[in-house]
């Protein structure tokens, strides 16, 4: 079943055309790698999906429904989540506080005064969410800032999961991680896929993209330059499509080593 369909998306900022008619489709539970050089329009494209930018032309459908006129909040309610590179975490607050920030479950104090945060319930649900991801954190009562990059990524993904997303867009989730942590984040992505959640993975780390995705979409000069099935492509081809022809074997070999 096709979850998300983009057709002929155009977006310009003043005189600068960033997207020149991008087509993209995402199946339910599919992991798509979105790659391209700096300035290819990856971030702009994602922000038109989440609704932060309004596309100048084209159509966006989620599950057959036109979502172009909807604002970011409405699109999130329909199941589009984005995890930014900075993760948008409050580093001095604990895990549960971050997962439920802005939507804390409440109870009445002595059954009378409303508005009190139900900390026990919040901790319980947060622990359940972390467990669902098959992840391990030192303690959910510790401030998130004391965690490693991969553990913080886990918290951000757990937060996204509480919105019951159909599609999670992840911006460079492995960029700043230690080698061992990269694998655990890739495992988290596979876990999302196994739950039927589609993932768009934006990354410069082509090894990660090749390892975890079903398809790779190459963005170049504001167009979807290539749409490759991951199982039938290789590093050489992906690098070639990103930089656009010429002798790319040296660049590909370099990526392979990295």
């Amino acid at each position: 079943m096709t979850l998300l369909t983009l057709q002929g998306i155009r977006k310009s900022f003043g005189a600068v055309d960033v997207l020149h008619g991008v087509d993209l489709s995402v199946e339910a539970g599919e992991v798509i790698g979105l790659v391209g050089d700096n300035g290819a329009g990856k971030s702009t494209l994602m922000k038109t999906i989440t609704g932060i930018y309004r596309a100048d032309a084209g159509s966006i459908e989620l599950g057959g429904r036109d979502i172009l006129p909807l604002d970011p909040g409405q699109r999130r309610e329909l199941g589009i989540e984005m995890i930014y590179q900075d993760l948008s975490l409050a580093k001095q607050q604990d895990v549960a506080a971050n997962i439920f920030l802005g939507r804390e479950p409440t109870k009445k104090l002595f059954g009378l005064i409303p508005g009190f945060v139900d900390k026990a319930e919040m901790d319980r649900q947060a622990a359940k969410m972390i467990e669902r991801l098959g992840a391990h954190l030192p303690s959910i009562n510790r401030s998130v800032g004391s965690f490693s990059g991969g553990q913080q990524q886990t918290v951000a993904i757990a937060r996204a999961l509480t919105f019951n997303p159909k599609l999670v867009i992840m911006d460079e989730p492995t960029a700043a991680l230690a080698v061992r942590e990269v694998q655990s984040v890739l495992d988290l992505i596979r876990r999302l896929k196994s739950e039927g959640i589609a993932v768009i993975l934006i990354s410069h780390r082509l090894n990660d993209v090749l390892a975890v995705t079903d398809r790779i979409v190459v963005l170049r000069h504001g167009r979807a330059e290539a749409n490759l099935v991951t199982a039938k492509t290789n590093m050489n081809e992906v690098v070639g499509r990103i930089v656009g022809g010429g002798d790319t074997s040296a660049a590909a070999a370099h990526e392979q080593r990295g």
Partner: protein
Amino acid sequence: MSFWSRVQRASVERLHIRLESLLVLVALSAVMAVLSPYFLSLSNFLNILLATSTIGVLAIAATFVIGSGGLDLSLGSVMGLAGVAGAFVAVNLGWPSVFAVCACIIAGGLAGYINGQLVTRAFVPAFIVTLGMLGLARGLALVISQGRAIYGLPPEIVYIGQGRPFGVPMPVILLVLTAIVAHCLLAYTRFGRHTLALGDSEGAARAAGIRVEHHRRIIYTLSGALAGLAGLLFTARVNAGDPTAGINYELTAITAAIIGGTNLFGGRASILGTMIGALIMGVLQNGLTLLAVQSYYQQMAIGAVLILAVFIDQYQVRKESRV
């Protein structure tokens, strides 16, 4: 993890108190008790609490604002303005005392509201806005009172400052009640959690759908209203609307909040911690007075303690982030 750091962590997580500040309070009290025979007595204990009441209320205001990543330098001046406003309503206008009490809170809240509007809408940094308000409020207090203290407050108001139901001074009772409400608000409600999240990462708070600017305006208004309450307590205690009341009090209040474990840059704050901080300042001032140290030196001590507290806090933050 060592036993000590485990106890430290538990006290922060469960009691919202930094263990170090509690130890400093006990140690400081012990030193004062040894140095002065008058220190350890019930009447001196109540004296300390009474002297701490005004600063304590201001420190609660400072805790909210600093915890949210803001700053309010106008606390002392707004306190002075509120006290004069209350005295003016009660004495010059001759209105019933309840109006005078309201005038204190409203005058303070209004000053705080203006602070909040300017910070969130005019994009002037909080440091500058509240520094400006420090001058504005003080000047207005002098204008209203024509530069002289307003005497002759009605007995109901004086009772708020000097009454002793069950032997406990009224300002102390009001401080404790305010602290309990403020602690619950900051530690256990969505409002409090959003306040700290906001001070921690404005971007994260915004992404979570928290109305950041709206929230900031409420916090500055709350801060002003609390300064108004402090003004009421002070005015009632000295039985006069003094336009010079509260000069430099923001220094002590902010110091108390920082000693109590409030992160100067926001994101971490606790009212219980701040109360410990306020008591440390109270014991310090009381002890120095008992030891007949000139008040000029006390001023210097407060300034030094502020710098020392921030240094220790930042040192610990750097140590933790290195792990």
